[in-house]
């Protein structure tokens, strides 16, 4: 990256600046670069200037676009010193620029060590505003499918009160799909490269302490998975909350329709969550509810199954995403699995082709990781949609206010309550293991503790 007579390989630089923390430390790297800057005194002027420029540029790009305050913070003092000292002596104007940049992006961090990165991409902040009804993009977006009375019924949610909606089915499935997409897209667009790499290789090292710090370093990745889990939980709760079997079938239809609309919007991330809810042991066992479903909906459900199928390592789903043109929201969980796969499946080092006793860094591994990150970033652009603030408030309220959404066992119990087992003797044994876990509960309707 700092040779005098080659062109810069952008892909290499990108991979390097994303991944170098996995095979060296920021301080070691900075020290080597500073040494190289000085080493050149013995060289001819012809080489000296380009190499020094490249070292300067590398630091500039690093600070500008790849800075991760943890662990890069360790070079801040050295960098400022170098700027004011040797860099200034050699290239005064470059020194001023780097010092300005460092002052702007690094200094705010020194007082506030949150561990978050400064390099928020411009696209993410654009995405946050892109959905407001007053934004420029809104004029080209399709108008939301809402009636005045629906908006009025949802309005209380804006001020934290219960909405006047009697059933979610009053919301058009397409519009619900769009609003969910807006909600997820905002988080998706704010996922940072370092979060992904942290989640990917953090798995390789052990320790519970590491686990805790990891959740702080990957806030948006966590937000994404929590949104998915809550969406699944919410759908499950809504279906189970309906006592009337016919209306329960109606809810099933509605959520299948929602899945179909999400598929059309290429929001695979939410589609995975919707399908997971419908396909869960809790919902799929409600045979009477499913029996009422028209064949048309069954075949749509099969389409959803195919779109999210993990057979042959998600071969079909992968092909769709590969060909997809943004806007699209791929399933975030698979990026995480792939990153671990590449990290675990490729060695950290490889023998040098010239001298097999010499071990080189297996840069291929990091290229592959950077490519996965790049694939996620490819879709970090907003949809052309307009938010309905009342609906956003309603959705947040519903997703955050889950009663049992996180507790699969209690949901399962409710499922048994609305459609009891057919009474097979084989099934009673599993219940024993469930009830043994929360035997402190007074409720024991099915006499599981027998």
């Amino acid at each position, binding site marked *: 990256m700092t040779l005098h007579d080659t062109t810069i390989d952008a892909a290499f630089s990108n991979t390097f600046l994303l991944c170098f923390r996995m095979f060296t430390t920021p301080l070691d790297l900075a020290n080597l670069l500073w040494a190289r800057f000085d080493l050149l005194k013995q060289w001819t002027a012809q080489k000296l200037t380009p190499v020094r420029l490249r070292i300067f540029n590398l630091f500039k790009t690093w600070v500008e676009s790849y800075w991760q305050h943890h662990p890069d913070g360790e070079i801040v003092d050295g960098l400022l010193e170098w700027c004011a000292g040797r860099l200034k002596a050699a290239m005064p104007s470059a020194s001023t620029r780097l010092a300005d940049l460092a002052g702007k992006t690094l200094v705010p961090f020194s007082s506030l060590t949150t561990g978050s990165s400064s390099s928020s991409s411009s696209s993410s902040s654009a995405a946050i505003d892109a959905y407001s009804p007053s934004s420029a993009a809104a004029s080209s977006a399709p108008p939301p499918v809402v009636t005045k009375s629906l908006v009025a019924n949802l309005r209380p949610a804006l001020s934290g009160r219960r909405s006047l909606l009697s059933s979610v089915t009053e919301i058009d499935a397409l519009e619900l799909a769009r609003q969910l997409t807006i909600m997820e897209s905002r988080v998706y667009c704010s996922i940072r490269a370092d979060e992904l790499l942290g989640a990917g290789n953090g798995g390789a090292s*052990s320790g519970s302490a590491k686990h805790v710090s990891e959740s702080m370093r990957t806030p948006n990745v966590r937000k994404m998975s929590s949104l998915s*889990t809550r969406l699944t939980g919410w759908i499950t709760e809504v279906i189970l909350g309906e006592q009337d079997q016919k209306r329960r079938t109606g809810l099933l239809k509605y959520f299948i329709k929602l899945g179909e609309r999400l598929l059309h919007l290429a929001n695979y991330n939410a589609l995975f969550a919707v399908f997971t809810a419908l396909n869960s042991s809790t919902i799929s066992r409600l045979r009477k509810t499913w029996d009422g479903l028209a064949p048309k909906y069954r075949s749509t459900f099969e389409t959803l199954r195919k779109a999210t199928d993990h057979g042959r390592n998600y071969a079909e789903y992968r092909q769709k995403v590969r060909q997809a043109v943004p806007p699209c929201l791929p399933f975030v969980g698979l990026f995480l699995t792939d990153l671990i796969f590449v990290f675990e*499946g490729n*060695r950290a080092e490889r023998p040098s082709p010239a001298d097999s006793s010499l071990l080189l860094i297996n840069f291929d591994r990091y290229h592959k990781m950077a490519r996965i990150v790049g694939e996620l970033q490819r879709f970090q652009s907003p949809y052309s949609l307009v938010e309905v603030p009342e609906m956003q408030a309603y959705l947040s309220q519903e997703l955050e206010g889950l009663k049992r959404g996180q507790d699969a066992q209690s949901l399962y119990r409710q499922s048994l309550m609305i459609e009891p087992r057919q009474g097979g003797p084989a099934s009673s044994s599993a219940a024993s293991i469930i009830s043994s876990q929360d035997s402190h509960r007074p409720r024991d309707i099915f006499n599981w503790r027998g």
Partner: protein
Amino acid sequence: MVQTVKLVVLGDGGVGKTALTLRLALNYFGASLAPSRCEDSYRKHAIIDGQPYMLEILDTAGQEEYTALRDQWIREGEGFLIVYSTTSRASFDRVERFRHQVARVKDSDSVPVVLVGNKIDRVHEREVETRHGEELAKRLGCAFIETSAKTRVNLEEAYFMAVRMIEARKGGTAAKPVRQKTKKQRKCSIL
């Protein structure tokens, strides 16, 4: 006839699920691996007790936070490996939750489950003793084995154990129901 067996690897993040799977499926590690080109990296031909099998392994690494997805994976699996790291007490403590979920989703206590204590190559970092693993396995009605994905100790054996349990269950000699074990557990906790 080659029989296909679906195995699901569960466990906390960072316990080495992917390493266990990849090192089983690929015997050597020189090749450059990319997930999109690895449709077969989770499949393994094996001869177990003279019978040919195709093991299809579902690796769930990286998606530990997607708790709702687990239900679906469990439904599709026939046998399970619940992995913890012998160097992490926290990962061991979470084993029980996975075991309960398997029992609930499968609606049965006799599902073939192997409890796998991984990373035994890290001798000095050990936090979970072998006997604690054995005790937990007994209590939860699982088979038990300790492995090292890194040095390949018991690597194949862990998977083969699960396949043998599946076979035994088909043959009607299902593992002892956990109901008894549960009672035992209560006794222990009182003591």
